[in-house]
């Protein structure tokens, strides 16, 4: 099989393979051609109606409609929190929230982006702080104003239990605060919607840093390694390996042992 495949690879026009891949990816890379679209929906961007292909996300639909983003877009893949969007659907009272890059368009969506959240972020030196609930209240006294209305949770596009982690903070449960807020992308929608004007994601940031630093010590194997480096343990090996030529390196690489699983 190997030899017949080898000849197949040889015969194959490699450039053609690349061209086929590019052709298949075209819709993703340079946008949908209107002629190929089967299903359309109507969305309302800040109140104005646009017909867009039904397969798009809010972000790509707005681009299709002609918007060039200089704000309200970042990673385009759900990590950065730049494209926070609020929307209501026709005939519904519920105000919904989502990341524009992660939410499919639906017919009758009225949407607006919230590309910026004004928020206080106090200065602190994590090394000087007490690992104690008072630290949270010292920097974010408004934390005590939480009325447990859960509006933050409803607004979270990551589906986090925001109120629960805020409450964990209030009761000084750093483990719960850190774990439950871990997937936060700091888009700001919780803070925008909070009737108590808490900036949940900044509180969580402080809580996670305290937890990360103080909950368990630096692993011993790391501390030991840092000491070894200070003592120059690897100097000679690095001097040698950095002076090797390609052939010697290739040989070493081919012969290197793999750690047992």
């Amino acid at each position, binding site marked *: 099989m190997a030899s017949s*495949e*080898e000849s197949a*690879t040889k015969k194959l026009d*490699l450039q053609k*393979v*690349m061209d086929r*891949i*590019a052709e*298949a*990816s075209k819709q*993703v890379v*340079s*946008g949908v*051609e*209107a002629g190929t679209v089967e299903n359309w929906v109507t969305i309302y961007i800040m109140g104005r109606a646009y017909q867009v292909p039904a*397969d798009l996300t809010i972000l790509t639909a707005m*681009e*299709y*409609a*002609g*918007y*060039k983003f*200089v*704000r309200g877009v*970042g*990673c*385009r*893949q*759900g*990590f*950065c929190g730049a494209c926070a969007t609020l929307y209501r659907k026709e005939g519904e009272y519920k105000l919904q929230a989502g990341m524009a890059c992660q939410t499919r368009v639906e017919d009758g969506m009225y949407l607006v982006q919230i590309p910026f959240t004004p928020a206080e*972020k*106090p*200065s*602190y030196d*994590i090394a000087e702080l007490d690992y104690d609930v008072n630290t949270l209240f010292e920097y974010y006294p408004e934390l005590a104003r939480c009325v447990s209305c859960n509006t933050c949770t409803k607004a979270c596009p990551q589906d986090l239990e925001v109120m629960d982690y805020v409450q964990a903070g209030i009761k000084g449960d750093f483990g719960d605060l*850190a774990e439950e807020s*871990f*997937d936060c992308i700091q888009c700001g929608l919780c803070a925008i919607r909070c009737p108590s004007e808490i900036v949940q994601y900044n509180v969580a940031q402080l809580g996670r*840093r305290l937890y*990360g*630093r103080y909950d368990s010590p*630096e*692993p*011993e*194997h*790391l501390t*030991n390694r*840092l000491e070894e480096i200070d003592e120059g343990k690897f100097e000679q090996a*690095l001097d040698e*390996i*950095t*002076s090797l030529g390609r052939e010697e*390196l*290739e040989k070493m*690489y*081919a012969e*290197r042992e*793999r*750690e047992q699983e």
Partner: protein
Amino acid sequence: MAELEYIEGYPAYMHELLQRVHASREKRKTYVPEAMSMEEQQKVLKLHPDYAPGGKRNISVGPNKGDVAPEPVADLLEAYPLVGSEEIDISSADFDVDIMVIGGGLAGTAAAIWANIQGVPADRILLVNKLRHGDANSIMAEGGTQAADREIDSLDRHYLDSMGGGHFTNKPDVLRGLVEDAPFVMHWLHELGAMIDKNEDGTFVEKWGGGTSVRRLHSCKDYTGLEEFRVIRDEFRSRKIGCIEHYPAIELLTDGEGTVTGAVLYNLETGEYKIVQAKATILATGGFGRLHIRGFPTTNHYGATADGLVLAYRAGAKLRDTDTVQYHPTGAAYPIQIVGYLLTEKLRSSGAQPVNVDGDSFVFPLEPRDVEASAIIRECYVRDKGIETPTGLRGVWLDTPMIEVKNGEGYIKKAFPGMDRMFSRYDIDMTNNPVLVFPTLHYQNGGVETDPQGRTTLDGLWVAGEVSGGVHGKNRLMGNSTLDTMVYGRRSGMSAAEYVKGGAEQGKLTLEHQTSYVKMLKEADVPPERRSPILLPEYRGKEALARMIDVF
């Protein structure tokens, strides 16, 4: 055409095909193809987009004249500036700082912090961002960060693994800096309070990465870059270091004699320009995924448009390894909304296997990235064993349910919350069904040539992170990119701070380097409409664009 019937998020025909993956799982629990020999690797690499013919040309102007680069990159290097000295007033500066950092991902932010730690006051540092501070590839890094901190491991072993992964083209002294500082970076992150995954006994969880000979990969669930960056940005903000957003640099300023002295910034919203003068400039602008080289979708963020390469090159800095591009083996290939998105290598190091249409595993899951990617392309387009999506893309299965077989029930939700969330938005449950993957444009391997302090061939200019070239050679290993950003962010920040504290003078602000570059462009017959940097890719609908008029 009739509407497709969907089952568990997949069209019925794909759902039927994936039953073969379920059927073969028992067999694959014990059978995994062996890693390829060097000869086999060389053979399959012919199918890599970098090695397949076409898509590249020689650079015709500048310090790297004659070197090979992907066509979209060559196009940007061989392009006219957005503004010339006749259009703007550079005689006085709007910002006067000691250190300007361009680019606010992990590298730039770390550079600013370490310059501050080295004694440059917070108000004498300015971090310039094209988008928001943190809209960067850094926060999208999922898998992890390498650091040789286990007893079984050593710095030279990390060096050798990285060298082999880079096909022995890495710059030795720069790679040495990377592996030497890696344990310190983990220490720094821990001190700052990053939540790095730990075992019950308090040691770090360390995973395999493609091409590593030991488990060396540290992670923070599958939000590693996000966690590292959030913590570092919080530290940056606590230090009150200067920062402006939505204000990309569109040109560097030099003294006309090869020293970088500042930059021209552009307000993306109002169109106003500002002049910065700085004794030292650190370029940390990231890579070029949004150029969609060879027509590939990308894992990169919106602003990954090679601005830094263009700016540095035009100012006279030398580049290296411009010919290679990293394609991540496993980008999402279905559904259409997430095509190209990164599915971390950590999925494979946790047990997920690539599987073809017959349900067979066809490649060792942890080959170096270029080899793994080529093997998947071969499966889809040479052996015709791929699975075609309704929009005509081909891919192979990544058998994610195997992760739970190997690590226990509930592991995916715990270790891959981001990925799981992404697929569940499209009704796909990656715990119970495989996902479809195909290589995606991921990383700029080369870049602005650097030394172990992050210095470039120009005085007054440092680089850090993806924009730099040398440390990874022609292929970067998993877990070495976030590491690179923090090691060389720190090194460049410290080196620039020493330079400033050593009495560096502010040089005059000129665009003379531009004048001579434009002259070369004209001599090379570069079409005058080609301009760079492009700052942002163009995704507007063609119908809408066709009817646009400019009245202001």
